[in-house]
């Protein structure tokens, strides 16, 4: 396709996908006593992920924002017999999620520096494998390759929750695994059906293949089973609070920051462009579930006693806004949905890290155990406040742009949709501020809180990039939306054209 962008034929995307595996190999060879291994494992993983991050920034610089097609494309025959290729490439929709993954991974490794003390080497191996799978998934331009990465994410995540998680970690890990797997295998069947219909698994080709409307509905439902679990949409969200509460901080961060985006990305990459008729047909259904998610889970969040659970429920609500945006099929809505995915990726990740900071110190996430921390931890209070505001959607922070665009897009579809979807912002403000007040304000009543330390240098290093990103996205969103303007416009145009085509066909038939 666009070989010029491929940095002189250099497989950049494969490099950032597979480089963490080199780190894994190094980790496997570390010898020595437990303490040495742990220290070396931390540094190896950090350096690997930092190098990957730096290399991935080349994409940021060299990505041609005016081009709506796929860039940095690599294509190698793989299952030649079945015309399946190892094909990688990014377009405006996927490129920023690749970067999100590569930026969050080193932060996660840094955040687990002290909180992970057992089996450090295994933890870092799991994390680097996870990075490979995430990046590969967003880069994959072949459906089979995409599916492999999509499902393989389960392996490291299952281990991360199950080995380093909280008291009910086994239950949470198994639930996470089985929920997601059930959805994925149904998608596998849809994949096979599309494969046989189109004769290829090449994603750009599939996007321009028209499937019969009757078949589209079945395919859509199969995709829905997979992506709705991953997003997660109400009522398939029940695995999420369990997984979040039990996972270690870094696990929660990746879960909220990247893994949830995989579902929404799936909708944007597969369901909407490939199945336009079914998407239009099922849009009211998606809207209903999303609105329920926004309002119901926001109310549930209000009642939570556990900080992580509260943020987990707020994630479900925010992702509900994302799915509303994606299924409006207009530029504002889809752009808003994508922006919301990105901002939620940064902000909810940051909020989980925020919880992790005090959890590392006091070892509880119970909201009632805290109070008055603002006195002792002013820097922490500032960071927390900033991310809480971004989560609420305060103008000038990352959260505002996405929600605003989604609501504008939703207005074009239906007033009540916008109204009910927007209600999430109010409820979001309620539970977030309520959380903030209970944790940060008031008087310190417990002795162990009196001696609590403010952010350390390491924690600053974790939060600083996230603070910058949050403000940047809020103040100058164009440097991010610029990436996908062309792609989204093409997507909307194609969707409208496909629908018009179906209507015309239906007219001929009648």
């Amino acid at each position, binding site marked *: 396709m666009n070989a010029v962008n491929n940095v002189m034929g250099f497989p950049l995307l494969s490099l950032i996908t597979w480089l963490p595996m080199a780190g894994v190999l190094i980790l496997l060879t570390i010898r020595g006593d437990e303490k040495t291994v742990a220290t070396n494992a931390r540094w190896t993983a950090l350096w690997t992920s930092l190098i990957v991050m730096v290399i991935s920034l080349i994409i940021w610089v060299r990505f041609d924002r005016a081009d709506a097609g796929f860039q940095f494309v690599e294509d190698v025959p*793989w*299952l*030649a*017999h*079945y015309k399946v290729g190892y094909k990688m490439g990014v377009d405006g929709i996927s490129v920023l999620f690749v970067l999100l993954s590569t930026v969050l991974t080193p932060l996660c490794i840094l955040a687990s520096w002290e909180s992970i003390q057992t*089996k450090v080497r*295994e933890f870092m191996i799991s994390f680097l494998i996870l990075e490979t799978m995430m990046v590969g998934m967003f880069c994959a331009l072949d459906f*089979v390759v995409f*599916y*492999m*990465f*999509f*499902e*393989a994410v*389960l*392996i490291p995540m*299952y*281990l991360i929750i*199950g*080995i380093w998680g909280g008291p009910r*970690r*086994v239950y949470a*890990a*198994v639930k996470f*695994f*089985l929920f997601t*797997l*059930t959805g994925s*295998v*149904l998608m*596998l*069947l849809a994949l*096979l*059906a599309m*494969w*046989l219909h189109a004769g290829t698994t090449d994603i750009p080709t599939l996007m321009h293949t028209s499937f019969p409307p009757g078949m589209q509905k079945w395919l859509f439902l199969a995709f829905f089973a997979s992506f709705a679990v991953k997003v997660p949409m109400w009522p398939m969200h029940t695995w999420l609070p369990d997984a979040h509460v039990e996972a270690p901080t870094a696990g929660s961060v990746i879960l909220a920051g990247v893994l949830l985006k995989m579902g929404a990305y799936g909708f944007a990459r597969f369901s909407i462009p490939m199945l336009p008729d079914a998407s239009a047909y099922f849009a009211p259904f998606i809207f209903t579930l999303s609105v329920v998610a926004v309002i119901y889970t926001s109310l549930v969040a209000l009642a939570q006693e556990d900080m992580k659970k509260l943020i987990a429920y707020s994630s479900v609500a925010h992702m509900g806004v994302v799915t509303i945006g994606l299924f409006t099929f207009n530029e504002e809505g889809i752009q808003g949905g994508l922006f919301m995915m990105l901002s939620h990726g940064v902000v909810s990740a940051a909020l989980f890290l925020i919880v992790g900071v005090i959890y590392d110190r006091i070892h509880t996430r119970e909201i009632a155990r805290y109070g008055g921390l603002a006195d002792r931890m002013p820097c922490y209070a500032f960071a927390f406040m900033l991310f809480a505001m971004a989560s609420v959607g305060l103008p000038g922070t990352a959260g505002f742009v996405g929600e605003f665009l989604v609501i504008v897009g939703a207005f074009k579809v239906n007033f009540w949709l916008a109204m009910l979807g927007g209600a999430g912002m109010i409820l979001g403000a309620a539970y977030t501020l309520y959380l903030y007040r209970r944790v940060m304000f008031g008087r310190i009543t417990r002795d162990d809180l009196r001696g609590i330390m403010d952010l350390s240098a390491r924690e600053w290093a974790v939060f600083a990039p996230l603070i910058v990103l949050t403000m940047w996205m809020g103040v100058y969103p164009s440097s991010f939306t610029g990436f996908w303007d062309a792609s989204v416009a093409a997507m909307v145009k194609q969707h409208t054209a496909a629908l018009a085509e179906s209507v015309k066909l239906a007219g001929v038939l009648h």
Partner: protein
Amino acid sequence: MNWTLALPEIVLAVIGLAILVFGVLRKQDNVLLCTMLAIGGFLVAGVLVLNGGQGVGFNGQFIADPFANFNKVLILLGASLAAILSLDFNEKQGIGRFEFPVLLLFATVGMMIMVSASNLMTLYLGLELQSLSLYVLAAFARDDLRSSEAGLKYFVLGGLASGLLLYGISLVYGFSGTMDFAKLASLLTSPEMASPGLIVGLVFVLVGLAFKVSAVPFHMWTPDVYEGAPTSVTAFFATAPKVAAMGLLLRVMSSPFGHLVTAWHSLIVMLAIGSMVLGAFAAIGQSNIKRLMAYSSIGHMGFALAGLSIGNADGVRGVLVYMAIYVVMTAGTFACIIAMRRQGRAVEQISDLAGLGSNDPFLAMLLAGFMFSLAGIPLMAGFFAKLYVLLAAVEGGSWSLAVVGVLSSVVGAFYYIRIIKVMYFDPPAGAFDQRAPSLSFVAGATGLFTVLFFLFPSPVVDAANFAAQSIFR
């Protein structure tokens, strides 16, 4: 009379006899040497299979074609791995006797004849040679009550299945006048050509073979035999004989009865669905890892049968890829199971694996890899096994099979990841004894294949494709 076609089988049989004579004449058992000879024999036979001629020999009794060769290589691979695994286990269990490699060789010869059969008579000969050797192997730990019980159970039920098979063969012969696969195929060109008696015969043949692949509802022997037999024998049972029986079933259903696909399709579908579902659900309650592997193999055979039921070359290719991957990952799993030994005693409860992740990270990582692979999680080889079968099923329009297949693999994933849970999430139990290098070798080699299969899938898939085409010519 082109006897060179059967050269690999003849070589193996001669080596078997030679070891037998050698073992009897020497007073003390020299198990290591005998086993090494057997493994050498397997290697020689493998080379001969790959370089041998192709065609029909022994007056139409025996056929050497790519399909037979593919299966033979798998059988030899399974047998060799089982032989390596038996070295350490048999010695430590006090059952290290030279008869073991001899029986292994004879069973392998039987299996190779099975997949090369082009006549119902040869089929039966091969099957019986295999079965009789396996009955003895199951009871190989003769002082162990459970092993003797396993051998007897296997023998009685296997004898019954053989009887059914013979009865079916006699019906087919009586109603068609021939036992030759090629002649049967030319007689039975459409479902109308088959008389009801012949269909009954076909069903009996199918039942007899379904017993050998332990498809539901003829699976009852499997868990008991797997659990009772010495683990080295179970490792063998789970690999090579499954390939042979599945290869035989593929050939019989596709070649002589290929045009009767409408007659047997629904039967195989029922066997497949029953096996997948039972294999998935019955394994959940198991606490013994060998029993669990028994149910797991039932489920896997169900998946392979699903590929067979499509009744075309794509389906057969899917099954062959499935069997190839299945043999490797199962052999690896059994290498890990054999390594479960505490203070000199073999342990086989799943709970014994607790804390393996801390005690022995290498073994735990491998076993976890095999479990993910058996569950069919991508990047592991097991995913590709399922992928090819599902692709054939969807292409053939068998949506019910495909949906049952993927959902039962989710249920199956539950018990596979439970093993990983026990290894990594549970508080540690005592450490296992030092592993023998032979076990590490088998587990490591098969583990590498399982993890890295996704990089180079083509050789296996192309070979399977070539093999599948050859029986549909």
